[in-house]
């Protein structure tokens, strides 16, 4: 009997309709389209004015199940990565299962900031590879507008809202998730953090007054970490699997900053036509960037393609996953 691998067999995204452009932001904070574009590569981002993270995830999951002609009752497990859950508890995966009618599934949330989708996909892979599960959903969703301070020009230009989901199923052809390298370094936790609302700083009038429920970022420290770690881990997973740049069909990088994406691709020896980029349209949607890239580029992916997913995020967290793509669209 062939070894069972976990393969992505479907992908879907959801983006709210409302667009927040760089021009819109110039009316809110002291910035300019040129300043934002040259530093980040972002031109606009989507904002969900009404609703919660689970509502975006619900739309993505329903469309995926329709596309794959799968009954919600067939889903056995949902792992949802997010830093903007509907509530601290119950989990957003729990809410999502109810909204979509996935009543045979159990689920949980996973918090690893912008690396959340990598961590969730790796976790889900174990449940498939051990033979216990046949249909698992991995969701990356964030409503970053719910924790962004729109008077802070250093962060409000970066983030957007969105959701992405993949279906993971067993594969006996050796396709699917091949390898992963995941890392955490908690000494970097202060550099990218939402300080208020947890047990360290429970919500009070003071935490609200001090804006502790918003994202705080030490931009330079995060950039330094990101640009080195994301490139290092991407090169490491290539080396570990004896892959040359010619062997890699696509890099799927976390969409936080175009300069970091370019540096990562350069370190891997990849030309820009092998790099998935949609940061200009959506900004940084945190846990949703990777599945949204896969969704945007799905029609260009071919069975057998070597694809490297790479991300970094608050924590610090970072990592890379090697996938052998399992289907033609």
């Amino acid at each position, binding site marked *: 009997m062939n070894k069972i691998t976990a393969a992505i067999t479907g992908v879907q995204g959801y983006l709210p309709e409302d667009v927040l452009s760089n021009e819109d932001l110039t009316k809110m904070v002291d910035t300019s389209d040129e300043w934002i574009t040259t530093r980040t590569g972002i031109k606009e981002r989507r904002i969900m004015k009404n609703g919660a993270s689970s509502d975006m995830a619900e739309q993505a999951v329903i469309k995926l199940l329709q596309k794959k002609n799968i009954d919600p009752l067939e889903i056995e497990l949902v792992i949802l990565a997010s830093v903007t859950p509907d509530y601290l508890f119950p989990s957003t995966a729990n809410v999502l299962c109810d909204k979509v009618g996935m009543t045979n599934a159990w689920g949980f949330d996973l918090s690893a900031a912008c690396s959340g989708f990598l961590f969730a996909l790796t976790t889900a892979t174990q449940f498939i590879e051990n033979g216990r599960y046949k249909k698992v959903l991995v969701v990356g969703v964030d409503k970053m507008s719910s924790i962004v301070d729109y008077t802070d020009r250093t962060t409000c230009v970066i983030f957007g809202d969105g959701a992405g989901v993949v279906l993971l199923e067993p594969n006996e052809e050796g396709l699917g998730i091949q390898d992963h390298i995941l890392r955490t370094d908690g000494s970097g936790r202060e550099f990218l953090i939402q300080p208020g609302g947890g047990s360290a700083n429970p919500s009070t009038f003071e935490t609200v007054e001090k804006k502790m429920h918003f994202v705080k970022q030490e931009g330079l420290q995060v950039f*330094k970490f990101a640009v080195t770690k994301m*490139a290092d881990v991407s090169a490491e997973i290539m080396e570990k699997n004896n892959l040359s740049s010619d062997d890699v069909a696509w890099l799927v990088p976390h969409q936080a900053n175009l300069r970091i994406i370019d*540096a990562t691709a350069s370190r891997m020896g990849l030309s820009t036509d092998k790099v998935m980029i949609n940061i200009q349209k959506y900004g940084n949607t945190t846990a949703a960037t990777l599945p949204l890239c896969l969704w945007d580029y799905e029609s260009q992916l071919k069975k057998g393609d070597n694809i490297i997913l790479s991300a970094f995020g608050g924590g610090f967290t970072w990592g890379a996953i090697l996938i052998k793509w399992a289907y033609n669209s």
Partner: protein
Amino acid sequence: MEIVDFIAAIEEEFEDLNPGDVSPNSVFRDMEGWSSMHALIFVALIDSKYDVLLNGDELKSCVTIKDLFDITFLKINGGGANT
């Protein structure tokens, strides 16, 4: 804006540098372990500290730390540097 502050910021950002390692005439590409990543961090450091974004050509035109300081100062003020 003083070059001593500029140098101090560089020495602080790069973990393998100690105070006194860098002088105005230091050739930054000769720094131990220099790579394109260091160039990006230089650009980010200057952007973060002085809100000046150097492009690739401007960075290529610089050889020493003083060159970097001068071009940053010029972009801020359009005048001469106070070294």
